[in-house]
């Protein structure tokens, strides 16, 4: 359309139902056509990095929970790995196995929220609630082991806060069996729904080279069709022992790298996580989970950058130690923070409604963006 209308600025957020938190998007629109998107952050800034400098190494762990509060175990995991690398300690086998299982459970839980809220943004509220029902299942399992539902403080430097609950293995297996038909149902209800496909396919196409240049990671990058997963490409913990696939966007319903691909990668990733859990759950060796926890954490001088594959992408901890009990500098390379930067690039030339779909498919957590 070439009818010239006035450009107007639409402030989406900080109070808006579907900006996934207190994000403010400044949309410059012409009619319904988006010309420019400027995200404004910082409404949830809680000074994590400043706080961390005043904490001892082990006291930082509860703070990392609050970054990506939908995948708190991943945050603990990354931080613990980084400090362990600084300290140069090895953790027992049992700890590694439990960490991996927990992280994969958490990945499923986090993807459930991501998929559900992506659907809810587009208007399908029912799948959202079904997915939350399934997420409760996971949260119950984790709660039984570590006592909290969201902010676990579970993975400690050199170990775990608790050993797994006696029922853990049985319940996790039950969950795996329960969850597989749910994915099929979700596919039928939402993924292959014509309206949903119309809303997401060919929308917000992110080419591979742009994605890499913008530093996108996780499902956002894999949706563009590149097989890059830190669990395979830069293996940490014991991920190299498991056999799993890296799902990528194939452009089944439209162009490679569109919203539907990003969405679908998450669903397929949940299946792969189930596969990892099934491989790991029977092989947990016996042992003590707290034996390797150092009494006093005082790493030598040095810097470390450790990254793991969090549900939202590459979560990196850059830690500088000056040889004291407090970290000198902790910088979090938050996947949502980096992925959100792509938004401005993706939304150009789409409609206001597409901005919501694209934002939902990028899947940000404001706790992590603002830190």
């Amino acid at each position: 359309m070439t009818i010239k209308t006035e450009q107007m600025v639409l402030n989406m957020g900080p109070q808006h139902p579907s900006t996934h938190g207190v994000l403010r998007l400044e949309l410059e629109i012409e009619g319904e056509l988006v010309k420019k998107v400027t995200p404004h952050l910082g409404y949830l800034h809680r000074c994590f990095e400043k706080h961390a400098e005043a904490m001892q190494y082990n006291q930082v762990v509860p703070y990392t929970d609050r970054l990506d509060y939908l995948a708190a175990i991943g945050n603990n995991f990354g931080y613990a790995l980084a400090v362990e690398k600084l300290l140069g300690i090895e953790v027992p086998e049992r700890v590694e196995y439990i960490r991996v299982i927990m992280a994969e459970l958490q990945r499923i839980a986090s993807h459930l929220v991501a998929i559900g809220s992506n659907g809810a943004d587009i208007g399908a509220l029912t799948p959202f609630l079904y997915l939350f029902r399934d997420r409760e299942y996971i949260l119950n399992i984790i709660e039984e082991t570590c006592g909290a539902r969201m902010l676990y403080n579970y993975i400690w430097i050199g170990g775990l806060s608790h050993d797994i609950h006696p029922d853990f293995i049985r319940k996790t297996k039950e969950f795996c069996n329960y969850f597989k038909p749910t994915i099929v149902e979700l596919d039928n209800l939402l993924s292959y729904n014509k309206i949903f496909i119309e809303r997401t396919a060919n929308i917000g196409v992110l080419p591979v080279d742009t994605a890499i240049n913008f530093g996108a990671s996780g499902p956002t990058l894999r949706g563009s069709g590149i097989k890059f997963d830190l669990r395979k490409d830069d293996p940490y913990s014991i991920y190299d022992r498991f056999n799993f696939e890296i799902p990528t966007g194939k452009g089944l319903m439209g162009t490679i790298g569109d919203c539907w691909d990003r969405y679908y990668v998450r669903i397929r990733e949940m299946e792969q996580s189930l596969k990892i859990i099934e491989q790991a759950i029977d092989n947990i060796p016996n042992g003590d989970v707290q034996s390797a926890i150092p009494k006093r954490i005082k790493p030598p001088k040095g810097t470390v950058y450790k990254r793991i594959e969090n549900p939202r992408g590459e979560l990196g901890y850059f830690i500088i130690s000056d040889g004291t009990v407090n970290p000198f500098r902790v910088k979090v390379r938050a996947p949502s923070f980096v992925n959100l930067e792509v938004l401005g690039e993706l939304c150009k030339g789409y409609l206001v409604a597409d901005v919501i779909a694209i934002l939902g498919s990028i899947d940000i957590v404001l706790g992590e963006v603002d830190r």
Partner: protein
Amino acid sequence: MTLYDILFYLFAVITIASAFVVVTTKNVIYSGFSLLLTFFGVAGIYVLLGADFLAIVQIMVYVGGILILILFGVMLTNKITDVDIRTGTIHLLPAAVGVGILFGALISVMVWTDWKSEPVELPVTTTYTIGRELLTNYVLIFVLLGLLLLVVLIGAASIARRDKE
């Protein structure tokens, strides 16, 4: 004073008062929405004149079509983010005088002419009669109007879409 009379005066007042607002208010949006009331009042008058089909066509075409078109026109050609849309007026006084004279002349013609003012018996089923007439006596005009509407549709779309070079 029968119900018929009451309804007539009601609709007449609605029509004239809102038409007055249409031409006098400075706010374009107000006149747009007053126009809605005017059309509605005119539709009421049609009903009183026994033209129920026409009244509904009036509502459908004017309220549902033309008015929305005009409102869209207003919104597309003004700064839509202001609540007040002001519009200027020109030569108010000469216009008022001229229109006053015209109005006087019209009224005198209307009132003093000896019209044949016996109500005729219109058919109760106006829809049926109009339909019959349209497809018998007026069939050429009917078809031509259909063509005209098609031409207008295409023409309006092409005019509005013309790119500014």
